């Protein structure tokens, strides 16, 4: 780029150019800069559409000026020169040619070319800064207002937020700038963590206002993650989410906003209370069913019909006794597994066989289908059997011998 400064002129300038003369000149700019030409003199033979003698200037192959005739300095300065520059990092090409003759002598052209910085901040196609844009020679950079930080994409300003509040048993959490409008492009993570025997309780304040689309979708959102579930997303402006008993000692609150909107956000206070056990309901129910059980309370778990306790292999009990522990966990705790009748043992050479034995579901409530492998037997009863809750199949069909029916032999001669 050291040569990107100097004069470009027609051959023979200023004495005049000869017929059949040409010039092919190109200069390219480094990234973030442009090549420009300032013509100070132009005197060529004039013609319709400059078809005789001409100067053609193009940027990256696109024609930006076609010149001939005589132009005074002012005209060049005001109407021609402002167009003569390349795109940032692009190339500027000047082509000059003269035809076979001139009616009189023409001096030609002369221009000064130079590198210029390109101001990306003024170009909306390039400038993607969400807050401030700063131009410098060869490039630009973004910066943010107070309370924001520049995101990893180097363009987006994201609200500063999030906090690790581990160890605190009570406190407040709110969206950035609460009760003012919350920051755009926020991605906040608040961490709460207390001792294992405690659980966190969250109470939202009035004024909850998180951007929601007219269709009811959450444009911005608040999510609460516990060790076992995710609550939310919450959004909208009324009413706030109800008090949340998380049953968890560890909670993460995520607040995400997009790049637009004017909403207040959220504010909540958190506190702790002793953990309780919740009734087991997955494929089972409990005796003396209550909303919550306290440490030391026992209950009997009864698996739903068709489910059994997986406490020990071969033990098909539907019930077990369990006690609520201080950490809010039942012990012992067994899953209620669906009863599996297994594939019926028909014997390899049995006339009765399963249709598609590999594809048959053998769990509680499912049906398996049978057929007789010999034409000399008929299927008695339905062709299916159902897996019962006791792990047995309902009465299986039988293949009965076809009786009293000799096959009619052919009498054809």
């Amino acid at each position, binding site marked *: 780029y050291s040569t990107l400064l100097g004069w470009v002129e027609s051959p023979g300038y200023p004495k005049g150019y000869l017929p059949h003369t040409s010039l092919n000149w190109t200069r390219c700019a480094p990234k973030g800069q442009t090549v420009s030409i300032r013509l100070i003199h132009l005197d060529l033979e004039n013609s319709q559409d400059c078809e005789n003698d001409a100067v053609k200037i193009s940027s990256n192959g696109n024609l930006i000026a076609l010149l001939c005739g005589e132009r005074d300095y002012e005209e060049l300065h005001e109407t021609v020169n402002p167009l003569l520059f390349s795109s940032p990092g692009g190339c500027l090409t000047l082509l000059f040619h003269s035809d076979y003759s001139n009616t009189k002598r023409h001096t030609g052209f002369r221009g000064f070319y130079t590198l210029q910085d390109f101001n990306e901040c003024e170009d909306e196609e390039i400038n993607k800064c969400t807050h401030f844009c700063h131009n410098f020679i060869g490039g630009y950079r973004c910066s943010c207002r107070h309370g924001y930080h520049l995101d990893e994409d180097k363009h987006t300003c994201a609200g500063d937020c999030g906090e690790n509040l581990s160890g605190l048993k009570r406190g407040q959490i709110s969206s950035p700038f609460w009760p003012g409008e919350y920051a755009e492009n926020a991605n906040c993570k608040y961490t709460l963590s207390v001792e294992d025997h405690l659980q966190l309780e969250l109470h939202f304040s009035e004024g909850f206002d998180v951007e929601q689309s007219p269709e009811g979708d959450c444009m911005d959102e608040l999510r609460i993650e516990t060790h076992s579930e995710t609550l939310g997303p919450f959004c909208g402006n009324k009413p706030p989410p109800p008090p949340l008993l998380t049953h968890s000692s560890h909670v993460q609150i995520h607040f995400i906003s997009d790049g637009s909107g004017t909403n207040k956000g959220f504010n909540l206070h958190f506190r702790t209370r002793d953990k309780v056990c919740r009734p087991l309901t997955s494929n089972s129910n409990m005796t003396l069913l209550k909303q919550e059980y306290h440490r030391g309370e026992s209950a009997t778990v009864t698996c739903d019909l068709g489910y059994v306790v997986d406490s020990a292999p071969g033990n098909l009990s539907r019930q077990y006794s369990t006690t609520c522990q201080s950490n809010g966990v039942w012990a012992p705790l067994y899953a209620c597994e669906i009863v599996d009748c297994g594939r019926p043992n028909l014997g390899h050479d049995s006339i009765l066989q399963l249709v598609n034995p590999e594809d048959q579901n053998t769990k509680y409530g499912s049906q398996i289908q049978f057929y007789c492998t010999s034409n000399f037997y008929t299927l008695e009863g339905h062709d299916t059997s159902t897996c019962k809750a006791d792990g047995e199949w309902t009465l299986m069909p039988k293949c009965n*011998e076809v*009786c*009293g*029916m000799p096959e009619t032999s052919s009498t054809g001669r």
Partner: protein
Amino acid sequence: ILGGKAAMLGEIPWQLLITEPNFGAASLISDQWAVTAAHVVNGVAKESIKLYGGLIDTTRTDVSPIPVEKVIVHSSYREALIQTNYNNDIALIKFRSKVKLGPNLLPICLPEVNRGVMEGEQGTASGWGASFQDNKWHRTTDILQHVDIPVMSLTECRKTPRLSNKAMTFTNNMFCAGGKGRDSCKGDSGGPFVSPMLSSGVGPHYLIGIVSWGSPCGKGGATGDKKGYYTKVENYVSWINEIKKNET
């Protein structure tokens, strides 16, 4: 069989042949059970029984006997030195394993419990027993014979023949059947009497009788009125089913 004709292979696929230790027949009632007359298998060792299925020609030597696992003679059957009472003449034979059914080996249906055996009802008796053919008596026939005969009236059945100068007993567990020159004969014992008769072409056929006893076939000539007595199977269907259930 008197007055009968030769069966074709597959025509009576439930017919089983017993050659040892006594000559007789049986009927296949499932792929693991057969029924016969008690007096054919009573008191014999199961291992000594040679029982064949799927054939009509007794001279075939390429057929293997069906191994017998158990013989169950009806508990009310009584054997005597001079037999005058064939009441409950029925026995079950269980095979060691299931036989492979096919066109020539198929079971006969058992009747309903209270089906009833009607006077004049036509049935078919079959067997390899004695026959009168080509003006000669034969102790047995090589090719299975069958004959269509009507059930006789109770009045006629009660007129039992005297055998060995002893009066023979007729009970409700029997019926008799026969016609002019048509009868089952010695060596047909244990074999089937099925209804409807085979020549009707109507099925399925039911085992309503088991060849049991009768007057000596030769007596009175080959063309006289014949009368054979058959165990009435419908009276034993519950017994058969109970034993099959307990043995499964």
